[in-house]
């Protein structure tokens, strides 16, 4: 039985830690890799140290989960040590990158490569400098520029993480076509009001919804993009168990990322996923994890 996935780099199983969840401190990343994750994506790292928003930064009311961390991060210059600590687990660490300009993306990606990251993931859901509330991902020309520039400057694989907060994801995906894989999806813009306090809960008011509630949105994007572009896809959004992961793979994903659910089941979710996948493959007579990718498209 073969659980290995090829994403430009080889990953020993298809379960990857999603960006922004327990992946700021190198020791935590290391621990999650040791708990069975095939690879881990770091928190999105920008040019400078950034405090992010004040708490509350999360709103949790199952099935709803909303966060507004506000891209807090130590800045790329301070992140090398964390990657080094994490790499001790001897599994791929994928550096997530965000920037305000093409140049920033490029520079941070290069640093990630120097630090030993196995691949970079471009977080295209970060704010667009010119657009009020708009994201970089909804500007196809900019996306294309960023991806081309980064691809030309580094030798490790480049993944583009797309935003569902757009009217035309196919266009966005096409703009990112030079990437080695597309990562779908980031969080869905949302908010919650506490009716007793009569105030938005998150200090930033708006946040990104993740978890169970967005799985059908993620499945739709993975399926649609796989059908239109037949690119390699990493599925993410609301995966809580092996059935959810298989659903993403059948929709077209080659691997999946797991985020929010970690707060529910702990880091051990990765070991559990691996066990459950093996059982699923035995029960369904699947030798190679690849066989699952895109079967619902046929």
């Amino acid at each position, binding site marked *: 039985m073969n659980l290995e996935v090829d994403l430009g780099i080889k990953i020993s199983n298809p379960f990857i830690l999603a960006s922004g969840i327990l992946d700021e401190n190198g020791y935590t990343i290391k621990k999650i890799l040791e708990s069975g994750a095939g690879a881990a994506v770091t928190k999105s790292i920008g040019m400078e*140290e950034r405090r992010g928003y004040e708490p509350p930064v999360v709103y949790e009311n199952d099935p709803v989960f909303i966060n507004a961390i506000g891209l807090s991060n130590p800045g790329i210059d301070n992140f090398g040590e964390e990657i080094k600590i994490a790499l001790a687990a001897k599994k791929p660490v994928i550096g997530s990158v965000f920037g305000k300009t093409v140049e920033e993306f490029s520079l941070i990606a290069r640093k990630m490569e120097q630090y030993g990251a196995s691949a970079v993931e471009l977080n295209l859901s970060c704010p667009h400098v010119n657009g009020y509330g708009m994201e970089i991902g909804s500007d196809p020309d900019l996306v294309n520029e960023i991806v081309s520039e980064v691809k030309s400057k580094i030798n490790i694989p480049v993944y583009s993480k797309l935003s569902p907060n757009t009217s035309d994801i196919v266009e966005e995906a096409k703009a990112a076509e030079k990437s080695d894989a597309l990562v779908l999806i980031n969080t869905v813009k949302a908010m919650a009001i506490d009716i007793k306090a009569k105030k938005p*809960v998150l200090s930033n008011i708006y946040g990104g919804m993740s978890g169970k509630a967005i799985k059908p949105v993620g499945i739709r994007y993975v399926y649609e993009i796989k059908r239109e572009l037949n690119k390699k896809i990493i599925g993410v959004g609301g995966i809580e168990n092996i059935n959810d992961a298989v659903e993403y793979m059948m929709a077209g994903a080659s691997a999946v990322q797991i985020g929010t659910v970690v707060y529910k089941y702990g880091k051990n979710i990765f070991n559990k996923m691996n066990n459950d996948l093996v059982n699923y493959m035995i029960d369904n007579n699947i030798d190679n994890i690849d066989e699952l990718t895109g079967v619902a498209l046929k």
Partner: protein
Amino acid sequence: MKTSIIYENIKLNDNTNIIKFPCNEKIEPGQFIMAWVPGINEIPLSFSGLNDLKEITIKIYGKASEHIAHLKKGDTVFFRGPYGKPFENTAGKKLLIGAGTGIASLVPLIDKNAYGVLSGKTGNDIVFQDRFEKKSIVTDDGSYGKKGYAVDALKDMDISEFDMIYACGPEIMLKSVMDYMVNINDRAQFSLERPMKCGIGICDSCSINGYQVCTDGPVFSLKQLMGMSEFGSTRLNYSGKRIKI
């Protein structure tokens, strides 16, 4: 968010208050809540009393703690939780070591077999001393009790005679206490404080060597802490930058 109505606010000293409120949640010593001040901030607070009314003891540092410390009878407190792994409350002789308001979360553990070590910068930082029958008090400046740190107070006693040692306070103090412990095996529990944003094990801001203080802690056993190279050494600041402690 959960809510409760403040029943009483007791001023302990210049910058420390106890608020009491009814709450039906099952809460154990050492657990904490994330208390929300709408429009301002949300902060972790542990419990200094777990009887019919729950008690929280707040030292004022900034806006959020100030707001909560000044809540009046009838005001609403907003919170999430309780969160975290509690102290394991064992029978036998207990040693409770608290620095400043750190002693607050140990108050629910006090019984007739408890011995308290209370430390503070000055006498003004010493609270809850009247709750202990047997105690040692130390202050950095000697303005109250003996002059010295918590660990100095320990040196005057035979800590190996206690069945369980509980400690809560700044990490640097906890580290010095831990380093002093020999022949204690695993008979010690430490409650840690690291910056917390989410309180539910997702944001990584409170982490120490792969453990989350908010979910795997705040209470860790001596054995657990001994394996942690970050303990008393480095942590991430609010933005995620590694800093020395």
